[in-house]
Each structure stands twice: as C-alpha cells, then as structure tokens.
C-alpha cells in the first residue's frame, strides 16, 4: 500500500532553534495514527508544515496518489487538495449560524466568482442536515455558533471537517475539554472516519490514545523517537526516559 502523505527529511528552525530535525513520517490512505510527545516536541510545527502554514528549510512533503509536493502550495490549495485540519481550540465562526458554518465548509467550488453565484440546493440542505445529525447538532442549525457550548463547538468543527471531505485529517487534541461521554463519541467518530481516510491525531492524553487503539508515533525534539503500537512504544526505554518516565 503506497503512502498518502510522505514527509521525508524535513527540518525547520526558528531563530536558530531546531523545531523539526530531519523528520520522516508517512501514513496510508485509510489509517488512524496518533502522534504523542512532550511539549515542544514539534507536534504543532509538524501540522503547520503539512498544512502549508510553515515552510521547512529542508526536506520534501508529498501527498496523494500522483504525489503532489505540498511545499509549493498555499494553505488554501493544500486544503482543496484534501488536507483538513482541526485546531486545539475550537475555531468556528461564532458570528454565524451553525448552518452557515457548515455550508461554508461543504465541498464546492471555492473561487470568489463561483461562490458569489452559488445558491443552496436541496442536495446541499440534505448534506448539511446529515452532517448536523452525525455530530448531534440537528436542533442547533439556526443558532449562532457563538452560543454553543465548548463541546458543541468542537463537534461543529468536526462537522465542518467532515463537510470538506478531506483525504487526510489532522486533528489537534480533539478530546481537550470534553466530558467522558463526549470523548467516547469522539473516539468512535475518529475510528469510523479512519476507515475511509487517513487521520492523524495529536494528543497528550494517554488514556485517549489507548482508546484509539492505533499505531503511535512518538516525537521528541523534532524527530521520530519510536513508532509502533502503544504497548510497543511504552516499553521503549528511550520513550520512558524522555516522556513517560517523568510521570
């Protein structure tokens, strides 16, 4: 199985500080992967590089069947190519309704001219209704996103990601600030999504990672320290030293 995302030999430094150091990483087209690591290990920078927010000093990042280099693309082009990103803090457009938020995210032409003449059809309404159902916001479609609770905003953002129909999903600490029941729902949804696409979850919470039951990549000082099942990496002496052992 060829990889969907292939990151190889990537390095980036900020003012002399090496945030990412010769990092290589790859994920298949339908795979769930957790990335763990202590603070400053380069998890967020890694996501910034893949989504085009940060340009690496060296290395290559390719994506897709006919590999595209993501390094020469803008954030918007990368998003259109099929990379979705969920932020740690829920970022939804609070001044607009849940419906408007989802409509904006729905897969459709993105150029200003096409968007100007775009009008909502029956199919779009059905899609929005289905998405809202999936993330449990059916009753809240007409409400302003700013009125939602923290957990509901997380759900809305997940719904917006689903609406984009990405082939690769980067999820930053999805369980932060969620109740136990919400966490279980999130876990189910992530596992479900990973059946048809690649999902990368960055997470601090070991219990949550254990629940995901997937391959784990441990980052440390901007490079991969270990990779394998959670049990495998937690037995790794280096991992214990830099990360787990401190607890």
């Amino acid at each position, binding site marked *: 199985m060829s990889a969907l995302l292939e990151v190889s030999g990537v390095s980036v430094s900020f003012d002399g500080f090496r945030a990412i150091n010769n990092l290589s990483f790859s994920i298949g087209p339908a795979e769930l992967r957790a990335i763990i690591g202590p603070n400053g290990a380069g998890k967020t920078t890694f996501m910034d590089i893949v989504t085009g927010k940060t340009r690496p000093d060296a290395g290559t990042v390719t994506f897709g069947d006919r590999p595209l280099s993501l390094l020469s693309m803008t954030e918007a082009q990368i998003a259109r190519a099929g990379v979705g990103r969920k932020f740690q803090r829920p970022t939804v457009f609070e001044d607009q309704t849940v419906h408007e938020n989802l409509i904006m995210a729905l897969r459709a032409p993105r*150029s200003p001219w096409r968007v100007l003449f775009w009008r909502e059809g029956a199919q779009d*309404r059905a899609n929005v209704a289905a998405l809202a159902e999936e993330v449990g916001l059916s009753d809240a479609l007409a409400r302003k996103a700013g009125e939602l609770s923290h957990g509901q905003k997380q759900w809305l953002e997940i719904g917006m990601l689903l609406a984009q129909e990405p082939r690769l999903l980067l999820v930053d600490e999805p369980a932060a600030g969620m109740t136990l029941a919400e966490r279980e729902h999130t876990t189910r949804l992530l596992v479900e999504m990973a059946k048809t696409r690649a999902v990368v979850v960055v997470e601090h919470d070991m219990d949550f990672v254990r629940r995901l039951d997937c391959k784990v990549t441990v980052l440390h000082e901007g490079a991969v320290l270990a990779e394998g099942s959670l049990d495998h990496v937690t037995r790794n002496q280096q991992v214990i030293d830099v990360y787990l052992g401190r607890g």
Partner: protein
Amino acid sequence: MSRSFFARNPSVLWFILILAVFTLAVTLLSDAYGVAFVSTSFVKTLGKTLCLCLVALAMDLIWGYAGILSLGHMAFFALGGYMLGMWLMYARTEEIVVAALAEGVLPATAEEIRQGIATQIFGVVGASELPPIWVFAHGFWLQLALVVAVPGVLALVFGWLAFRARVTGVYLSILTQAMTLALALYLFQNDSGLRGNNGLSGLQNLPGLGDVSQDRLSVWFLWASAAALGLGYALLAWVVSGKFGSVIRAIRDDEQRVRFLGYTVEGYKLFVFSLTAVIAALAGALYYPQAGIINPAELAPIASIYLAVWVAIGGRGRLYGAVIGAAFVTLVSSWFTGGRVPDLPLGFYTVQWVDWWSVVLGLSFVAVTLFAPKGLAGLFDLWQGLRAPNRRGAPLGPDDGALMEREARE
C-alpha cells in the same frame, strides 16, 4: 429557505420604498417640478448626500463585512469624478469654442477647434497642448468606461500587491492612506495633465443641455443618484446575503481558518476591494457634476477617514447603517459648518460651531466606538427588541410563549 431574495432581505424593499418616497417628496418640493419650497442648492446637497451614501455602502462592504479598514476609498471616488469631469469639461469647452469660431469668416478647421479647446482648458496652467491622458475625453462612453477602468485597475494592482504580501490590519490602512496622499500630491502638480490645483470646473453645465436650467438639472441628478443608491443597495444586499457574504465575514473574523477551509483569502479581498473601488468611482462620477468642481484637495487623506467615521457612527456590518451614518453625519455637518447654528456663549468663551464641529464629530466617533459599537443602526435593534424581546436561546416547549432555555435558568 426557498423564499425569495426580498423575503429574506426585507431591508432592501424598505430601503427602496423610503428612498422612492424621499425622492418624490423632494421633487414635489423643488423649484423646477413642485412648489419651490426646497432651494436648488439644497436639492444639490441632497443629491450629493445620496452619492456619499453610496460610497459609504461600498465602505461598509469592505470594512464592516470583510474587515479591511481601507482609508483610500475616497481616492477612488475622486478618480471617478475626475474621469467623468474630463468629458464634461472637454465637451462643454468644445461647444464654446465652436460657437466662438463660427463668428469668423472662414469655417474653423478641426485643428483650430482642438487648439482652441486646449488653450481654453490648459491656459490656466500655462500649457496649450492637450495632455495624452485626454485622448478619450471627446467621447462620453469612452470616458465613462474609464470611470470604471481607471479606479478598478488601480485597486486591482494596489490590492494585488498588498494582499499577496499579506499586509493586514493597521498596516494596510496606512498603505491605503499613503496611496491616497501620493495620488493627491501627484494631481497637485501642474504637469499631471489634470490642471493641477485648479482641478476641473464648470462641471455643473452639461454639454448639449445648455438651455436646461440648473433647477431642473439638479432634480435630474437627484433622481440619478437615488437610482444608483437603490441599485447599489440591492446589489450589495445580494452580494452579502449568500455564501459569499458568509465567507467575507469569516475572513473578517479569522482569515487563517478560512484558508484552511480551502478559500483563497487574497482573492476574496482583492475582489471586494476592486468591487468597492468601482462603486466608489461611480458614486464620484455622479457627485462631482452636482458639486460643479473637483480638485486634488478632494483626495486629501482626511476625506477617506471621514468616510470611515460615517460608517462607524451609522453602524458597520449592516448596509442601512452605512447609509444612515453618511446621510446623518454629512447633513448635520453641513448644518454646523454652514454657520447657521447659533454660537454658544459660555461667558468666558463663545463656542463657534464652525470651528468646534470637528471636535464634536471626533468626540461622537470616540463615544460611538466605545459605547455603541453598533452605531445609529443599533437603534433599530432597540426598536425591534421592544416588539420581540430577546429571550435568548431556543424554546423549551413547542408552544408559542414557552420559556426560553436560558430564561428559565435565570
């Protein structure tokens, strides 16, 4: 959601209705078509105010909706005025020159007429040749195309450079101010080809309509300005009502997030910037024939700042707010600065409003920004709030009048 555009945007119908009633009322009170209650100069003031409302609408789209505080839109407004002014001045001078030469023994040649026009227009800056930029000035339609093209292309080039470099916030505002100032300084030069600080004058005289009185012309321009404002309102209401409006408001609130949704933020900003520049230019092209004169002082940076003040006082982020702000502030302003407001004697000092008006305007701007960010248009919320109190949250029960969820908690 399958309801018509007007049903979803009731403010459009209301706006057009109020505008129509207003225009009809002024017409019936005018010197030319009614009971001569409103003077011609005041009809012109009202017509000009409508043009300022139109440019305020454009400002609201770019600032209130897209979040780009452009302090250069009055430059596009003035450029539109200059472009149409060139034709007005050329064609009008041509009439005069042809009439003067007709008294001669020999029929005038085309070259003589051209020379006569050039001397008439440019004698004041010591030139006798028409500058190359006047090459289209003889044709109304050509020059009208330039009203759209010149500000449009300037906005495209400027916007492309600024937005591509991801200049945002106050830095972008400063850049637009610099653009305005540079343009004004350029036009102040005598060899800019637009008569330096003399500007273009006599624009109130329409070529071919020499025997139509200003009384009637002023009302015609009022109609044209009202029609333009109505159309502009409907167009912008349509632009902001759909997904496009959603996207630009999202750009205002969090542009990085919009990029991750796959929208090219720079493209949207450029689109809105250029569209509003063209609307501003058309408003200017209607404004200056009513003002009669345009000179580079019209491009002064302060003019664009006033535009932002109108929109802020009126209430940005909704179209009628911009119109209310522009109309209210410019009319009150012309009242105060017209010397018709009695002085306020304080005993130790007499407040003369002509001098103190700027201070009052500045203080009200600060007050509105601090205490009523919704501006004058927020009063509508207050009024609608009286009719249907904001009970917050969704109904708890299916019946009308069921407790709202947050109300129940309080």
